[in-house]
């Protein structure tokens, strides 16, 4: 079953990326990732202004069960973090695609095209399950 929005792009490390009107991208973790991790209790986001390279560890989500790294899907500079997740990290469980963690100004806007679309991401999730 796929419930991954088709207007988003996805990284193999289970982040989603949404292109915003202002040219920045919002980044969160996929429904599959939150299901694997379980109840979220803590989110640590990168500092605003930090420059990230694609694939770099830049945030942490912690569930009751475990801590998990979040990777920068593309290279860019952090322009904002979602303050709501400080007080309500469980929003990632209830609304994974509405719960962005941080925004990036991409170094190169075309990089987003290297990410997977919803169908390719679902195939990737299915292949990891076997």
């Amino acid at each position, binding site marked *: 079953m796929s419930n991954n929005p088709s207007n988003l792009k996805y990284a193999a490390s289970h982040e989603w990326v949404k292109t915003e009107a202002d040219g920045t991208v919002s980044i969160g973790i996929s429904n599959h990732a939150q299901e694997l991790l*379980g109840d979220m*209790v803590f989110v640590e986001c990168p500092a605003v202004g930090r420059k990230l390279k694609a694939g770099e560890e830049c945030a942490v989500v912690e569930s*009751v069960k475990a801590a998990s790294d979040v990777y920068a899907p593309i290279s860019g500079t952090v322009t904002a973090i979602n303050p709501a997740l400080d007080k309500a990290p469980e929003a990632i469980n209830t609304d994974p695609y509405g719960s962005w963690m941080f925004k990036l100004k991409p170094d190169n806007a075309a990089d987003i095209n290297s990410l997977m679309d919803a169908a390719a991401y679902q195939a990737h999730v299915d292949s990891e399950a076997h």
Partner: protein
Amino acid sequence: MTLKQTPLNAAHRTMGAKMVDFGGWDMPVNYGSQIDEHHQVRRDCGMFDVSHMRTVDIHGEGVRTFLRYLLANNVDKLQTSGKALYSCMLRPAGGVIDDLIVYFMREDWFRIVVNAGTADKDIAWMKEQAASHAPQLKITSRNELAMVAVQGPNAHAKVWQVLPQTKAATEGLQIFQAADCGDYFVARTGYTGEEGFEIILPATLVEAFWDNLHKAGVAPIGLGARDTLRLEAGMNLYGQDMDETINPLEAGLAWTVDLKSERDFIGKAALLANPPTRKMVGLVLLDRGVLRGHQQVHSAQGVGEITSGSFSPTLEKSIALARVPKEVQIGDTVQVAIRDKMLNAKIVKYPFARNGKGLI
């Protein structure tokens, strides 16, 4: 390697459990939300499949004498039929082979419940010791038995609703006492810090028992919540808080070791010869984050290590058990290394929560 399954494996899947490999067993980690399951047990009641744990019966003349030597706690504390005792079983060097519960049923029958992952080595050790000290004893691994824990303030009422025939024999049980009710061995014990029963029964009956509890409104609880419940209750987890490299005095279990009496037991000489330099304490994280096992604890008196850490749903804070230099005091603030940061945590006396209430 094929994972081992309890007789409730299909039932867990039907109930939507997320299954994980738990020490070689295919077990439910949760059936939805681990935090909801945790609160369910503290506020109402829930049921746990603990059939992976092993029941071992020891029969014969002189069981008590043998167990006085085999176990670090003193079975002479058990004088009433059904009474139970928590104890460690030690190597001669003092390391913990396993922690267990021993029930005194009759002078020629004691029952022991051991951890799943250690069961085979435990039984091998018991048999090895019996061969040289009490060869007349019969040590039987009861692999045909299953075990369900029903825990929470409403647990007794639910069990009596489902098994009314056990009520008369179990309503007068003290804490840490069991009654043998035919097919159902009902013990007032648990691993959550709540009231409740642990019921040992034939594997052939467990699915019906589980379903009837469910129909009576008892929610299934996974191993995830079991872990946060026991951590809040300040109960050790074998393999995490102690193992064969750790002696019970450095695992917060001095209260279970009887060093004062003249009784000799395996490991006693080593414990007397090696006074502890570390101790177990509770930690509450003051900064934001989550304490986890193996994080380093920096104190003015030296470095220690977290053995179990998580988020406490009852306290809504991160808590941990840690082994630290023995000079560290309750109330001290220490620093815990979490990724690239040093976060402040306070040393506290545990348990952190019991009987529905936070204690910190």
